[in-house]
């Protein structure tokens, strides 16, 4: 009985805080994405040769955890199979946040573009309990920093 009560409390807490945090995070992502829009991230390996650029490796990484409610939802989903919608937003947020951090780093370096952008995803804290909810996403690329023309 108390276990059930605890579960419900945890679910309610997870849902409340999780939804709030997610909405706030998305707002901040959208806002920063607009701000960093002028700095394109390109997956191509062939940067333009002209004008002359300096190059630097830039990275951005994020570790996000999923709240209790979503973890519970995913565990339930595991029974029936199908699309695990509760993890979609988690990964979406992690990727966009990582890219933003990478772009932010590029901007501090004075770059105008980031080339050859790649993502790396890893689930961490594996093995602790049966369900994991922490994912690290790393975005990295080469920043193109314009140098004063010679």
């Amino acid at each position, binding site marked *: 009985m108390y276990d059930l009560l605890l579960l419900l409390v945890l679910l309610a807490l997870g849902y409340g805080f999780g939804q709030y945090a997610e909405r706030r995070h998305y707002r901040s992502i959208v806002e920063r994405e607009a701000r960093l829009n002028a700095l394109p991230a390109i*997956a191509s390996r062939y940067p333009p040769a002209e004008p002359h650029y300096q190059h630097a490796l830039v990275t951005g990484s994020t570790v996000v955890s999923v709240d209790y409610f979503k973890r519970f939802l995913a565990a339930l989903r*595991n029974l029936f199979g*199908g*699309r*695990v919608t509760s993890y979609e937003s*988690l*990964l979406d947020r992690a990727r966009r946040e990582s890219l933003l951090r990478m772009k932010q780093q590029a901007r501090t370096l004075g770059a105008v573009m980031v080339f050859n952008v790649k993502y790396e995803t890893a*689930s961490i804290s594996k093995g602790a309990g049966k369900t*994991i909810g922490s994912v690290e996403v790393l975005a990295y690329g080469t920043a193109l920093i314009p140098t004063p023309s010679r």
Partner: protein
Amino acid sequence: MLISNMELLPGRRVVEHLGLVQGSSVRAKHVGRDIMAGLKNIFGGELKGYTELLQESREEAMLRMQQQAEAVGANAILNVRFSTSSVAQGAAEIYVYGTAVVLE
């Protein structure tokens, strides 16, 4: 929509780079499949259920990437890469991304 994992297509010129587009899909199979896969692990062989799962997942991820590319006005996605990661027990994420471009 042209989707390719090459960066340069012979004879086609890229007019405009539109940045990264991505699609992802997290899916799980029902417990029955998980149990069957567990049994199959003893004997080895192809895990048909999981092959199917990942295939479906991949198609959905590609579709989503394509939707993003269409939304930004691209007509091709080049340099496409796939990655698979297990987010939680029994659930796998398929992630696909590439550069949205406008080809001549």
